[in-house]
């Protein structure tokens, strides 16, 4: 049976096989006393910690703080990236002005911006959001630029022979042709923003001083500090789950937005 003949629930069950097997293996190892409590705690312990985390509100609180931070940074970065990308993709002058600089800045690893940004903005929220936005900016700008620049020549020619004016050429030919590339940029920018959010929370600042408001990254940093392996595992688990959920959300949205197929 190929994947395409499976329906959605079947696919979901299949995707859960590996994680479930790992949990079983983990439990067995624990049952036989093979786990060193300092490095890997038991599944039961993680479950208990997550119950406590939910009961005192620290896990949902941190999750919401992280999500909010990610979404704000992503929205800002992706919006500016979209505008820039479209501009550079459409205008030769703008491309000449900005493209070389953007291409160079893009080579700087996201976390290498931290020293510079913290010198400018301190270690507060402004700095974190800026870092996340910066991460989201580049893939979005690149996707939008590529999409607007690489409209297949045959489609452009259709616009020419139908004497479409500039506005109609943009709305009926260039932008639709660019949408797949723009959405790819959007997906990637969300990925990077999510990574950047964790990095910002984990690396910047002074630890878990503001409590749950500092997010999952700070929660993890604190957990590591106090050697709370149960909390570390829980935090990682949550980051992964939310990352996957965000990714799926954007992909689902993309599919809905482009029902057509390129020839």
């Amino acid at each position, binding site marked *: 049976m190929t994947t395409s003949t499976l329906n959605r629930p079947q696919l979901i069950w299949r995707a859960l096989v590996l994680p479930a097997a790992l949990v079983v293996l983990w439990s067995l190892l624990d049952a036989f006393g093979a786990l060193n409590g300092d490095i890997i705690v038991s599944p039961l312990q993680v479950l208990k910690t997550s119950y406590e985390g939910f009961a005192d509100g620290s896990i949902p609180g941190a999750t919401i703080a992280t999500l909010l931070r990610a979404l704000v940074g992503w929205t800002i970065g992706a919006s500016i990236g979209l505008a820039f990308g479209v501009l550079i993709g459409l205008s030769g002058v703008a491309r000449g002005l900005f493209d070389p600089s953007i291409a160079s800045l893009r080579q700087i690893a996201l976390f290498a911006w931290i020293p510079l940004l913290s010198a400018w903005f301190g270690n507060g929220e402004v700095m974190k959001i800026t870092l996340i936005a910066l991460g989201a900016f580049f893939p979005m700008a690149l996707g939008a630029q590529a999409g607007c620049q690489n409209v297949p020549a*045959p*489609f452009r*020619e*259709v616009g*020419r*022979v*139908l*004497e*479409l*004016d500039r506005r*109609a050429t943009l709305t*009926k*030919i260039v932008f*639709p*042709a660019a*949408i797949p590339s723009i959405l790819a940029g959007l997906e990637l920018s969300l990925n990077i923003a999510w990574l950047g959010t964790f990095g910002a929370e984990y690396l910047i600042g002074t630890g878990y001083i503001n409590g749950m408001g500092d997010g999952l990254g700070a929660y993890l940093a604190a957990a590591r500090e106090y050697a709370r392996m149960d909390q570390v595992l829980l935090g990682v688990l949550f980051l992964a789950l939310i990352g996957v959920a965000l990714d799926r959300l954007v992909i689902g949205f993309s599919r809905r937005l*482009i*029902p*057509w*197929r*390129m*020839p």
Partner: protein
Amino acid sequence: MADALTLSRPKTVEVGSVQISDVSKTFRVEGRTVHALDDVSLAIASGEFISIVGPSGCGKSTLLRFLAGLDGPDSGRIAVDGEVIDRPSLKRGIVFQDHRLLPWFSVEKNIALSLHSLAGSEAEKRERVQYLIDLVGLSGFEKALPHELSGGMSQRAAIARGLAPRPPLLLLDEPLGALDSLTRSYLQDELLAIWEREKSTVVMVTHDVEEAIYLSDRVVVMEPRPGRIAKIFEVSGKRPRHRDDPDFVTIRREITDLLAHRRD
């Protein structure tokens, strides 16, 4: 079928005459020079139906692109109604060999796009689009996206898009190539009917010698490397023509012989 043409255009002056004089074009392909067209000259009268046949690579599409204004020759002159072509125009409609429907628009919207830059009310345009959809036999597929259509259906939608603005000069690049023989002969007759009604000039590239003779006033036979006109055949005989008429058979033999001969 009732004539539902609503985008009216005064038809007082003769339009759509073509003058092609000494047109040459070379392409550089992987370091080699390809003589796509070499010193091609051809005058087409207003209202004429011309077919171009010839082996692939003899410059048929290139010539059509020049007429559409999408490309220009290296040397020589191409004029429509005495005016040198320097850009595409809705007065010169082209149906591309690869149908080129926009994948993000439905059949309906693809056809309507060719009316976008024309004057006329939305209602008029909608009526015109529906008339053409019916004409090419795509009723029921108004909302279908191009990837949901067969090759033949896409080609028919592209023909509808080409016809919609009622261009005085209609350029068709193997428009019926992807169609089954039944649809094909139906659309040949529809094409003739439209041509007679609109009094437009038609330049059609085709692989099908019979189709060329059935439809055209003249059949231009081209040869490749370098691309040029080998011979032009006048087709007399009133329409509708019959494929087993002695004249029809004779001219078909002459053209196929010439094509077979030029191929070696």
